[in-house]
């Protein structure tokens, strides 16, 4: 049974369809594995075993009735900033510690309709602000490859759960790299779709012009399966875009002859560890050897992305997080202090340090006298960056570069260094600012830790991004090596 837990969605659903095992047996096996593994990894905030059993029974009934869809009966898990009807959704914050949403996020509703089985809600940096999951108000999550290291963030629980076989796939959210960077750190596949490809309805907002929901999986094919399930226009999200949704599985042709790949030189500087750059360059060389046309390109504005992002994202967050006021839901502190005093006390007690820091930066950047110097400048810088991406995509079909400058760092290592932690996202942030799709696929190891290859595409061209990722995956044959995170194997 244990080896079944390491299979892909495509593989396990084949077994469910062939009736080699039932959705109920599979879910029980996953729940047992979670109970053994979770004490070492701590990927979850709220496990939902009873809900999972109920969903597994329904899924099995549908399987028995002859339904054959790829997610039917497959155990998955959700980042805890996705609203789940009747299941606590905390955003890893004290201010939402008791919040039980009265509705499902659109992506959650779509996965329910597909018959996926929810095994729990996953840990994250509070309000998705962070790169290590250490800013969770509850507990840190550990990297299954080295339990002394972080899983990345903010979707650290989502990446660790997939790597540690506690779910076949998970959903995360990515505002500046929060899917791709933890995917790279944990040796899994992670996709941030184009802004507007997936509905954000029911995703607790951090920075609304940058946030996007996406899957973390073991294979590129699974990533396509998950994207098929969640993509598409949603009347509940006016920023979701009404463009055709192809069957992303059909994009997975193991042939990239003639595909033009750009290597943006700025993505190999900016503190990228030489061994990481070398591992990624080797992967690009192999892609060239099977027919990709590789050329160096330049995106000078990428080096300004961190500054642009840390003005725009906090500005949007300061506005979005104004809703946590102790009135309609969540924590309330200091009711005796009057209505303003209650709001001030509630917010100070409910938000962690990193969140407060970003609210203050954002409020300051938007405040009278500073708007032009900060916010407007950052928005204009964003335009220049986008124009440079547009120009580069006249010459190439996709960009390839590292996902993160280093492999996973140690717990506590960067927590007190205000800029070092933020630099973990320096190679992923430009993609959010330009609204592009970005995929991280494992491409090798440095010091026994996984390294991610990032593939960036044109708006709404996830198909090409997935195709390049799939070709790399078939070529690299890392699947067996990725199957067993060593530290976890030793711990169990």
């Amino acid at each position, binding site marked *: 049974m244990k080896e079944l837990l390491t299979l892909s969605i495509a593989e396990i659903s084949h077994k469910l369809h062939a009736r080699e095992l039932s959705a109920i047996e599979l879910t029980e096996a996953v729940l047992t594995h979670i109970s053994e593994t979770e004490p070492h990894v701590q990927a979850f905030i709220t496990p939902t075993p009873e809900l999972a059993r109920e969903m597994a029974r329904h899924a099995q009934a549908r399987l028995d009735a002859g339904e054959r869809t790829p997610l039917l009966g497959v155990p998955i898990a959700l980042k805890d900033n996705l609203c789940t009807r009747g299941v606590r959704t905390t955003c890893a914050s004290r201010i939402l510690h008791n919040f039980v949403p009265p509705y499902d996020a659109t992506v959650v509703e779509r996965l329910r309709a597909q018959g996926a089985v929810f095994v729990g809600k996953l840990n994250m940096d509070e309000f998705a602000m962070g790169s290590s999951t250490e800013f969770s108000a509850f507990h840190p999550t550990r990297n299954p490859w080295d339990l002394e290291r972080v899983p990345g963030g903010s979707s650290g629980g989502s990446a660790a759960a997939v790597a540690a076989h506690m779910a076949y796939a998970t959903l995360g959210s990515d505002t500046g790299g929060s899917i791709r960077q933890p995917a790279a750190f944990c040796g899994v596949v992670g996709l941030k779709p184009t802004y507007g490809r997936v509905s954000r309805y029911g995703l607790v907002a951090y920075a609304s012009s940058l946030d996007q929901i996406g899957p973390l999986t073991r294979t590129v094919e699974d990533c396509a399966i998950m994207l098929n399930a969640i993509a598409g226009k949603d009347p509940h999200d006016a920023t979701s875009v009404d463009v055709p949704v192809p069957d992303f599985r059909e994009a997975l042709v193991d042939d990239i002859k003639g595909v033009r790949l750009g290597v943006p030189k700025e993505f190999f500087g900016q503190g990228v560890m030489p061994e990481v750059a070398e591992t990624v360059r080797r992967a690009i060389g192999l892609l060239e050897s099977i027919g990709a046309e590789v050329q160096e390109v330049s995106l000078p504005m990428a080096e300004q992305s961190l*500054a642009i992002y840390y003005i725009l994202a906090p500005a949007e967050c300061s506005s979005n997080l104004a809703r946590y006021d102790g*009135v309609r839901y*969540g924590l309330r502190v200091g009711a005796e202090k009057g209505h303003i005093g209650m709001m001030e006390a509630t917010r100070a007690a409910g*938000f962690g340090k990193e969140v407060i820091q970003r609210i203050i930066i954002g409020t*300051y950047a938007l405040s009278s006298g500073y708007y032009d110097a900060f916010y407007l400048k950052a928005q*204009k810088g964003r335009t220049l960056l986008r124009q440079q991406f547009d120009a580069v995509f006249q010459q190439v079909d996709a960009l390839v570069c590292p996902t993160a400058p280093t492999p996973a760092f140690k717990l506590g290592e960067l927590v007190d260094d205000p800029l070092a932690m933020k630099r973990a996202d320096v190679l992923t942030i430009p993609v959010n600012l330009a609204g592009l799709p970005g995929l991280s696929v494992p491409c090798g190891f440095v010091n026994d830790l996984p390294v991610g290859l990032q593939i960036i595409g044109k708006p709404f061209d996830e198909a090409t991004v997935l195709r390049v990722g799939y070709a790399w995956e078939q070529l690299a044959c890392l699947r067996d090596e990725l199957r067993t995170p060593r530290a976890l194997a030793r711990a169990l």
Partner: protein
Amino acid sequence: MAITLEQMRHTAKLARLELTDEQLTELMRPINALMEHFERLQALPLDAVEPTSHSIPVFNAFREDEVGATLARADALANAPEARDGLFIVPRIVEE
């Protein structure tokens, strides 16, 4: 352009955050590290550039004006820190 303690106090007030001077002083170090990093934007040739608020331009999103499902009152109130008679209860706002 470093932020001062006085500006920190004012900003915390705008953001409705009850923070002591000690907490604000502690927050100044990381905030000023970022502020210093922001300086690099000042040198960019941005005068003739239009700002971008959304990467994928979406203009008016119209829909038919039809009555759909809405949240039941009991569901809307279920998470309230305090509720009574179908209403959210908050500290007194108007003085007697």
